[in-house]
């Protein structure tokens, strides 16, 4: 079987996704273009005419993020015109889906070298501003029992018995691990500082990590989804989850993923093209899987997709050295951990989106780099990356260092 290899992985630091965020002034196409230039530079300015395609995940592809940003970002960065580009959207997993799609392109034998990644400037393009029939069309919304993800996360917490204290403890862990990793330079290998046109530094590290996070301050935050839940969405959830008498709204801005700006790219190709371009493979993409569970509870997809990917790889959960499950909401991660029976010291070992934020379209690709860096740093072999996805989907990818 022809294999797909990861040759490089880079990302921007994540800036707070508000008007006051440091990356708010940077256009999303610029976030991507700086990464394209970095990939060239880090890899000896290889011949970009050998790149077939660019696949970019973006969840709010409207306005400045619309119109196939993949094609124009690389051209803006000065890559060759023969390189194609497309933007995809599988909600929160778009960045990982881009990587998986790239691997499939390579494994099919029809293409040789792909850039896969994602971008989301949430401070400039608010989440949900692209609309969608799922929640804006009354007939569809009603038939499918739409509820916002935060209410789904609270529903999981209620069913699984994750109390406010448990999810807050998980959030605290995320900040502590991320702060530790940042302090010790674990992220430095992938992070490309964002600069202005003069080369002046704008941001070189993840902006939302709180070194001073503590249980007392987390406990003070109000539940984010209680009001809308009690207004109507809890009732919709209870139409399906009939044993739930009351939804316990435990998620707050403190134990949910942060809204941030950021981008990430990976370079994925065949063994032959890598060799031809003088690139050194860092890991092999062992398997990739996508599946979907119930769209109302929504965030339980990761365990199913992980199991599917493990099966494809002929592996069992114990064979994975490091798991990276996107910290969309604390309960979603804890549920995933419970389903696969994963030890704490194997899961999200350097924190996650609760501390560092979740730039929707980019996160999946970022996590590939995070896992790869950590495997290399600790000299381990296998990693599994997964994300919960809107609509109940789950995406998972297994990589193995070579």
């Amino acid at each position, binding site marked *: 079987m022809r294999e797909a290899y990861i040759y490089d992985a880079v990302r921007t630091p994540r800036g707070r996704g508000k008007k006051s965020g440091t990356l708010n002034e940077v256009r999303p196409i610029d976030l991507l273009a700086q990464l394209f230039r970095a990939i060239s530079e880090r890899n000896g300015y290889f011949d970009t005419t050998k790149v077939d395609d660019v696949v970019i995940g973006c969840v709010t592809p409207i306005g400045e993020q619309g119109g196939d940003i993949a094609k124009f970002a690389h051209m803006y960065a000065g890559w060759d015109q023969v390189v194609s580009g497309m933007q995809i959207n599988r909600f929160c997993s778009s960045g990982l889906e881009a990587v998986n799609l790239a691997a499939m392109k390579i494994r099919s034998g029809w293409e040789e070298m792909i850039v896969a990644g994602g971008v989301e400037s949430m401070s400039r393009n608010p989440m*949900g*501003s692209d*609309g969608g029939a799922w*929640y*804006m*069309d*009354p*007939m569809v*919304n*009603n038939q499918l*029992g*739409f*509820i*916002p993800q935060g209410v789904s996360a609270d529903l999981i917490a209620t069913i699984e018995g994750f109390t406010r204290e448990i999810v807050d403890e998980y959030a605290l862990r995320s900040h502590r691990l991320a702060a530790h990793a940042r302090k010790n330079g674990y992220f430095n290998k992938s992070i490309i500082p964002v600069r202005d046109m003069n080369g002046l530094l704008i941001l070189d590290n993840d902006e939302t990590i709180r070194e001073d996070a503590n249980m007392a301050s987390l406990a003070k935050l109000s539940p984010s989804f209680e009001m*809308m839940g009690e*207004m*109507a*969405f809890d*009732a*919709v959830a*209870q*139409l399906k989850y*009939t*044993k*739930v*008498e*009351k939804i316990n709204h435990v998620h707050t801005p403190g134990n949910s993923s942060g809204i941030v700006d950021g981008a990430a790219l990976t370079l994925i190709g065949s063994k032959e093209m890598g060799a031809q371009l003088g690139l050194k493979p860092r890991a092999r993409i062992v398997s990739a899987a996508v599946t979907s569970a119930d769209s109302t509870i929504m965030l339980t997809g990761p365990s199913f997709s992980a199991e599917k990917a493990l099966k494809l790889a002929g592996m069992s959960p114990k064979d994975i050295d490091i798991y990276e499950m996107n910290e969309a909401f604390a309960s979603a991660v804890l549920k995933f951990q419970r389903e696969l029976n994963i030890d704490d010291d194997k899961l999200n070992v350097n924190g996650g989106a609760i501390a560092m934020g979740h730039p929707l379209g980019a996160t999946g690709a970022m996590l590939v780099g995070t896992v790869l860096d950590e495997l290399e740093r600790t000299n381990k072999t296998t990693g599994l990356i997964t994300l919960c996805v809107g609509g109940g989907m789950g995406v998972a990818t297994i990589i193995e260092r070579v």
Partner: protein
Amino acid sequence: MINYSKDSDNIVTLTLDNPNRSANLINIAFGEKFREVLAQLQADTDIRGIIITSAKDTFMAGADIDELFAESDAQSFFDRGQELKAGFRYLETQGKPVVAAMNGTALGGGFELCLAAHRRIAIDNPKTQIGLPEVTLGLLPGGGGVVRMVRLIGLQPSLPFLTEGKKVSPKEALSNGLIHELATDKDDLLAKAKAYILENKTAKQPWDQDGYKMPGGTPLTPKVAQMLPIAPAMLAKKTYNNYPAPLAIMAVAIEGAVVDFETATRIESRYFAKLATGNVAKNMINVFWKQLNGLNAGGSRPKIEQKYSFKKVGVIGAGMMGSGIAYACAMSGLEVVLKDVSQEGADKGKAYSENLLKKRVSKGKSTKEKADEILNRIKATADANDLAGCDLIIEAVFENRELKAKVTAEAEAVMDATGVFASNTSTLPITGLAEKSSRPKQFVGLHFFSPADKMPLVEIIIGKETSDETLARAFDFVKQIKKTPIVVNDSRGFYTSRVFATYVLEGIALLEEGNHPRAIEAAGLKAGMPVGPLALTDEVSLSLFAHIRTQTNLDLAAEGKAIPQHAAYRVVDKMLEMGREGKAKGAGFYEYPKESGAKKFLWPGLAEQFPNTIDLTEQEMIERMLFIQCIETVRCFDENVLMSVPDANIGSIFGWGFAPFKGGTLQYINDYGVAKFVARAKELHAKYGERFAVPASLEQRAAEGKEY
């Protein structure tokens, strides 16, 4: 039907005047005439403007529901809707000003016609109703009502009118932007209509003008867009997705708001056809239109010409029920003697009315003077002699045969010799109570529902000796206090209590079998019942159930009949052993926390006492809880407890809240399909026992393909 006249100013007045009915209706005949009138208008080249008004007290009541009910073809609904709307559209686009001179109530299609006018002027009569109540019959305003309301006042403000069928007075209509102007009387109305036409050479609807912007924005406007995800959820919370009409209305409003007027019109017609041909609309029209109108017109009243009217009503027992009955009577202009064993008790009962009246005044629904007048009609007393001169006495004392016999004698001693004595009992057979009466022919059962001031139904029970005249009187009394009467023959639990009990017992049986209590409650609510079976049992109290069963068993034993077993009673007994009697005791299937604002929640101990060992599908639970009611209703029919289908259907919905969208307990069988119902009931019988046994009469119906 539509009179066409033109005055010296070349203003055409179209006067709606249905020759066959008391109100103007939109039906096929109207459509034909309307087409002729449009042709005449088109041919008439020197018209200055058009006034539409009515020769009736009302402007127009809406569509002809009977005609609509008879139609079942989607294409025909679509075509007819489109044709009518093309006519409305012509009126608003032909260029000359059109005024709707709303002399009275304009509802449904009547108001939709007004919406197609450039100016709407209404006589300022607080009794006039303006609105689009189609949703209450499972329909949507299919005459352009959704499309125009959204364009006229915007998406959010129009939704209460469209999805809830909210009706308003002319003043409220003006403040909500539904009409433009008020008039004092008919002359003023026509003068204002004329003046508008003389001032405006041409007229265009706002939505046909250049630069039109939808008030509040379209679904693409961020402020509106952010409300879209929760709107269907709020609906689901309220309706458990049992009512397709409000959702369809929301869809037409939203889909129609991003396309042009003609396209929106087509979308509206498609959804209308879908609803009008659907089961829910048929069920609701059948029960809330045909059968309810029939009952209110005296469908179950003996054919006695004379109509009776009551002047002075005695109510014995000033508890919750007696107080509510007294209020309902006083509100309808009757003089009331509210008697209790003590003056204090009677005063307390009267205070119930006082509080309700105070609320009405504070809400602006009544004035202090009127409220005082109503309250003064109630005389609270402990003296039986005050009942003298009553032409009707209703006893609402505790359910105890001796006590009831005592107050019967007491009342009959002083009341009108020709008067009616009524017992408000929900469980004791009337014939037995009448044995203690000196005038059993004038003795009848009037079963009110609690709270009697609110609940719309009264179940009239005919005792063995009750005369037709007494029944006719009772019927007229119920109508006099503006409630709906159903008539049933005497039997244990009559109709409503008997069938109602089957619902809660079935729910309790599900618990006994090991289903999750919250899943049972959810299934009850999704079945369309207003309250889950366990919560309802708590409301009624488990001790009452035990009490009724004991009484029933004693009666059956006395009659030498077998005592039926029901799994539910094992649960009831266990709960009573643990002192969990229900809501009144603060402990039943639910816990009732004392802190203010705290909600009741299922008693956690249920998990231990009745562990969740099986999970029947929700559909199975829903069907068990509905089927058992329907089968028991058929038995009531077979035993002649019930004598008419409308009594059964209306009684089930108004009496204990049986799923309204199913159109009542017997209509549910039609809705399900009689043969399919029988087949499914047989499955339930095999699985769950005798109580689901299919009555022979029902099997016969299925065989003959006959509906109820």
